[in-house]
């Protein structure tokens, strides 16, 4: 009998690779993966944007959404997007932290949301305990 080792899906474990794939989406200008304690795990951002403060605030926002959303019914939040007139930030929640993507105003929100949803799912499957 051969020993079968149930390996975790590789895609969701390689967070840098996952982020690199997401950054190929049209009109996505940068992104990062941040641990719940605010430490940057991976980042690929335009030169003028500092990773550390953005990570700290993304983790704070992610935790706020995990703990209490802006509604009476509490629950998990797999994904959120925050838009200004000059760009949008997408935030996905996973067991190992948060994935942040930055998009131009003309970015296709539905496409980015679908890709991020898929990435979040891959991380959940890969890091399931």
């Amino acid at each position, binding site marked *: 009998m051969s020993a079968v080792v149930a390996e975790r899906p590789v895609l969701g474990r390689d967070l840098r690779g996952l982020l690199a794939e997401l950054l190929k989406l049209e009109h996505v200008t940068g992104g990062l993966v941040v641990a719940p304690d605010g430490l940057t795990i991976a980042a690929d951002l335009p030169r003028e944007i500092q990773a550390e403060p953005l990570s*700290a605030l993304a983790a704070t926002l992610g935790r706020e*959404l995990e703990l209490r959303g802006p*509604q*009476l*019914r509490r629950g998990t939040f797999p994904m959120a997007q925050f*838009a200004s007139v000059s760009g949008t*930030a997408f935030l996905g929640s996973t067991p190992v932290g948060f994935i942040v993507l930055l998009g131009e105003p003309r970015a296709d929100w539905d496409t980015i949301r679908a890709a991020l949803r898929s990435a979040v799912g891959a991380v959940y499957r890969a890091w399931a305990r």
Partner: protein
Amino acid sequence: MAFARIWHMLGGRRRRPTSAQMFRRAQRLRDEGRFEVAAELIENALLSEPGSVVGHLLAGSLHMTLRDTGLARTSFERVLALEPTQPRALLGLARIAIEEGEPATCRELLSRALARYPDFPEARALLEVARGLAANADATRAPTPSDAIRSDRVRLPAESREALFVRRDATLVFATPRGPRTEAVAASAVKLARIATAMLGRAGFGPLRHAVIEGAAQTTYLRTDDAALLTLAFDSDVKAATAVAHLERVWGSCRSELA
């Protein structure tokens, strides 16, 4: 021959790893996502070296990753007992304070960290948020008139499960349904908008105007400007375009009523 055997036995006996080795291994395990194993290893290493700042910091970080805020706080406090201005521990405790709705404590912790280490961009970014939240908490709000805006006048959509309209100082204007937690939810929505605006600013964007927050059963749509904030929650099967159209219409009504 006998000497060679004894030498082999001595050489082959495994030495107990040092605490430093255990902490390094724990860090590797953490990076591999084996959080519980890493936490256990750190706990063991700290038994033999209870005064290790690195060990307690790692433990705090792991507890935060596992979303165990109480244990994380204990770890960071132990670090500060050993090294009162340790910046990562001050930042960790400041993050916990902001999570727990204590912006003044957060501000004080971050100010301590920045007084010692002025070049600490994470602390500076969080301090901006904490200052804004603390100012909000300190502000004396005007009492909310019960009929400031009646929700029937803004014609809430039938599909909407929850609606909330609030001034940016967290004064509630109306909420449907309204319950004992409504004021807290209003404050939470304003806090969320403030953190999101700070994050967008750090990303080189302007202030928050729209948000969509997906939940397990409902999706919340948020619209805001410098003066007010509206949220409408819909069941997840309501199309985004429909929800956004409702949001914009209700937002227009709310803003003209408020004016």
